[in-house]
């Protein structure tokens, strides 16, 4: 076994493979599949200060080598998340490393949920700030695609908690590096990317949008080349650790992200195809490191050869 220990700024994980927020529920749903402690971290579905119904249905549509989703951040809200049996209490008991993805409709919402989690942070490894969800009309889009708004929400959240902070970037921007620099300037300890890319699909029989919300976020292998490019661009722009994601189906994909500059990766849509995908990625990274005589994951991070 190669050493898979992964240092991400203030955080150390047992391996570099997480679940992508929104694709692994609250961990609870997969408890019968495997021991969650095997994962680098469980990143839970976005949590707001309030419970939320999410969007009307249909919320997903399958597209070539990917899917569109506009779940619209359905969730129990932070209170129930901290107390409900199938949420944080379960995760604490499981012994898994937990990263809580947070969102809100206003800056105050973000600060409130961050402060609540800060006050009750047993078992929470870090917060991931989702400024990039393209599905919520009230603010969500603007936070992730407007540098001034991003700076405001990120620096406010920084003041609301002393937990390690990950900023999750939206790919729906002209210059992703600007947003990464902004996040670092506002005190983020890590950057994660990419969230989904806004897309649309139309049923030509009914002439209706396949997603009730009209647009949805594109995820899956279709977006991988775009994600790899953005991870590379961000790795050139900032020095904090990067968590790469977008279309990772197997260890080869994950390694591609790491060579581009990601210190860790998250597996998302692939989990729908195969709940065991994150574990297979861990094993495959280990095999690659052994085959290439690497003693630790650090040796492949950003190891793209340009000459």
């Amino acid at each position, binding site marked *: 076994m190669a050493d898979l220990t992964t240092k991400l700024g203030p955080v150390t994980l047992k391996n570099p493979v997480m679940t992508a927020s929104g694709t692994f*529920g609250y961990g609870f*749903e997969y408890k019968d599949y495997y021991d969650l402690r095997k994962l680098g971290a469980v990143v839970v579905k976005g949590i707001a200060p309030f419970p939320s119904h*999410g969007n009307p*249905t249909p*919320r997903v549509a*399958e597209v*070539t080598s990917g899917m569109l989703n506009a779940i619209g951040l359905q969730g129990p809200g932070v209170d129930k998340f901290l107390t409900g049996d199938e949420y944080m209490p379960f995760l604490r008991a499981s012994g898994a490393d937990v990263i809580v993805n947070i969102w809100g409709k206003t800056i105050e919402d973000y600060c409130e949920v961050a402060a609540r989690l800060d006050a009750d942070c047993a078992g929470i490894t870090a917060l991931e700030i989702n400024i990039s969800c393209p599905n919520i009309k009230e603010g969500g889009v603007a936070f992730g695609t407007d540098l001034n708004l991003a700076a405001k929400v990120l620096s406010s959240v920084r003041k609301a908690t002393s937990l390690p902070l990950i900023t999750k970037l939206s790919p729906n921007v002209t210059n992703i590096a600007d947003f990464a620099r902004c996040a670092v300037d506002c005190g983020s300890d890590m950057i994660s990317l990419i969230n989904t890319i806004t897309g649309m699909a139309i049923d030509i029989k009914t002439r209706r949008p396949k997603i009730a919300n009209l647009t949805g976020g594109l995820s899956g292998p279709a977006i991988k080349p775009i994600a790899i490019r953005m991870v590379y661009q961000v790795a050139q722009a900032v020095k904090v650790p990067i968590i790469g994601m977008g279309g990772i189906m197997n260890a080869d994909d994950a390694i591609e992200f790491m060579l581009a500059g990601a210190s860790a990766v998250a597996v998302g849509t692939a989990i729908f195809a195969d709940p065991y995908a994150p574990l297979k990625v861990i094993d495959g990274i280990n095999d690659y490191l052994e085959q290439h005589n690497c003693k630790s994951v650090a040796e492949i991070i950003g190891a793209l050869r340009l000459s």
Partner: protein
Amino acid sequence: MKTGEIISNKLIQGSYFQVDFYAPEICRAARPGHFVHVQIANLTHRILRRPFSICDCSSDGALRVLYKCVGEGTTALSKLQPGTVCDLMGPLGNPFLAPAADEYPILVNGGYGAAATFMLTKESSNGGLMLLGARSASDLLLVNEYEAAGFEVRVATNDGTAGHQGLVTDLLQQVIQQETTRKWRFYACGPEPMLMAVASILQKNHLSGEISLDHLMCCGVGACFACVVKVKADTPEGWRYARSCKEGPVFNSEQLYLEK
């Protein structure tokens, strides 16, 4: 991951196929109303699994699914040869409540719904009644099998090619008005509009039944919130979105929140 080697896969009628997987572990755990989530191997540009009701399970580990070719996934599935090994998740979902010893099951089905409720025939000590609707006679599934299992079958077709010309819900109305001797338990599976009509008829008659919904699914285990359906709840709006893969696919008709 559980696997299922295809034992046989063949056209049975119209555009309906029947596939048998060798999946003893799933068979042992399967209850009526459960589903399996199938990875279709020969469709490499599609990521998501396809959910199918478990139609039958044999003691030697053969898991039967009846499916209709409606799109890319089901068409690709229909081309898989015996010997192909498929990746299966299951049994998944919240199954039907079996009829109690003194209950008489009345099934209200459309299309592949007849497959979804078939295992109930093994759980009823009093036989039962299936009301089956379809577009045309050739879409009526499993009629002989239900009869062989001791169920009465009444059919309705849109085009009148078999049984009552009209909707299966017409038959349901009749039954509710005429049958009075026995203690009923209703079960329903079929296209969404039909199910909503069934739920509404039951609610109006102060009856309740078990409704198996067919909603677009991703994860199949309650993690992604793709498959939600409105159920009555103590929220300001009077409803919440329940995950039909986990809290369903079988819901009690009283739980369902019916839009006006």
